[in-house]
C-alpha cells in the first residue's frame, strides 16, 4: 500500500522542495489518482496566475530613495542648525542685554526683533500646517 500523501508533501511537490526520491514517489501516485491530479492541476494553475501578477507598479520609475534619504539625513541637519542658532541667539541676547546703552533704545530694538520673529514664526507655522495637509505633496511631475 503506497504511503499517504500529506498536504505538506503536496505543497513541497508543487514548489519543487522535495528530495528526488520523494518527488518520484508522489509522481507515481499522481499517475494513479485522478483526484490528486485535479488538485495538483488547480494549485499549479493558481500558481501560474499568481506569478503572472508580476507587474511593475505605477510610479516605480521614481525611487523611494529620495524619501528615505530625506528621512535619514534631515533630522541631523535640523538638529545641528537649530542647536547652533539657539547658541548664537542666546549669546547675542546676552551681549545685547549686558552692553552699555540707552535702555529705551534697547527696548525699541528688542521690540522690533521680537515682532519680526513672531511674524516670521506665524507665517512659517501656517505654511507648515498647509504642507501637512497638502494632498499633492507627494505628486511628482
Amino acid at each position: 500500500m503506497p504511503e499517504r500523501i500529506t498536504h505538506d508533501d503536496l505543497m513541497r511537490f508543487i514548489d519543487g522542495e522535495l528530495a528526488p526520491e520523494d518527488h518520484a514517489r508522489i509522481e507515481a501516485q499522481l499517475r494513479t489518482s485522478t483526484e490528486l491530479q485535479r488538485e495538483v492541476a488547480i494549485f499549479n494553475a493558481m500558481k501560474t496566475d499568481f506569478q503572472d501578477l508580476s507587474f511593475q507598479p505605477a510610479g516605480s520609475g521614481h525611487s523611494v530613495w529620495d524619501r528615505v534619504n530625506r528621512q535619514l539625513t534631515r533630522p541631523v541637519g535640523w538638529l545641528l542648525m537649530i542647536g547652533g542658532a539657539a547658541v548664537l541667539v542666546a549669546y547675542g541676547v546676552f551681549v545685547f542685554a549686558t552692553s552699555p546703552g540707552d535702555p529705551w533704545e534697547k527696548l525699541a530694538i528688542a521690540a522690533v526683533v521680537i515682532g519680526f520673529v513672531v511674524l516670521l514664526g506665524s507665517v512659517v507655522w501656517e505654511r507648515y500646517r498647509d504642507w501637512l495637509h497638502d494632498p499633492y505633496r507627494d505628486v511628482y511631475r
Partner: protein
Amino acid sequence: MSSGTRKGDGLQPQVERELIRKCRAGGARFYEPLVRAYEPAGLRIAVAMMGNVEDARDALQDAFVKAYDSLHRFDLRRPFGPWFFQILRNQCRDMLRSRQARFKVEALDERLELRPADAEKGPERLRQRAAARELLWQALEHIGAEHREILVLKELQGLRYAEIAQVLDIPEGTVASRLFHARKALKDALMSMGAEYP
C-alpha cells in the same frame, strides 16, 4: 517567469556586507545602493500586501528607514534580503492594523507588465490571462493577511521555504502547511467568485 528568479536582485553578498559596514559607520549615502537593489522586490511585496501602490510606497519607505536604524543589530553573516523583507512584512502588517487601512485592491490594468511569452499567444489568450489575473487580484482581498503574505513571498517573490521561514520567523516545517492553508483559502475565494479550474 520561474519562481526563484526574483528575490533581492542585484548586489553581490560581499558588496552588500561592505555597504552595510559603511552605513553602520554613519555613511547614509552608502545605503542608496541597498535601497535601489531591494526596492523593486520590496515594492512587489508591499503592493501585494497592501493592495495599492500609495500605501505600499509608504510602507516601503518606513521599512527602509527602520532597517537603517536597526543595521547595528543585523548579523553580517546572513543575507540582507530576508531580514529586510521581514521588517517590510511587519511594517505592512502594522500599517494595516494601526491605520485601520484595509487591504484595498486597486485596478491592475495599467500596471501589468506584458511578458513577451504572453504576447506571442494571441489576443484571446492574452485576454483570458488578464481576466484570470484580475480575478486573482480581487480574490486576494478576501483572504487574511497571514495567507496573503506567505503567498506573496512564495509565488511573487520566489523565495525558498527556508527563506520564507526566516522572513516569517517560523519553523521551516511550518511553511508547507501554511502554504497549503493559504492556497486553499485562495482557491475557495476564487471559486466563490466564479473562477473555473480544471
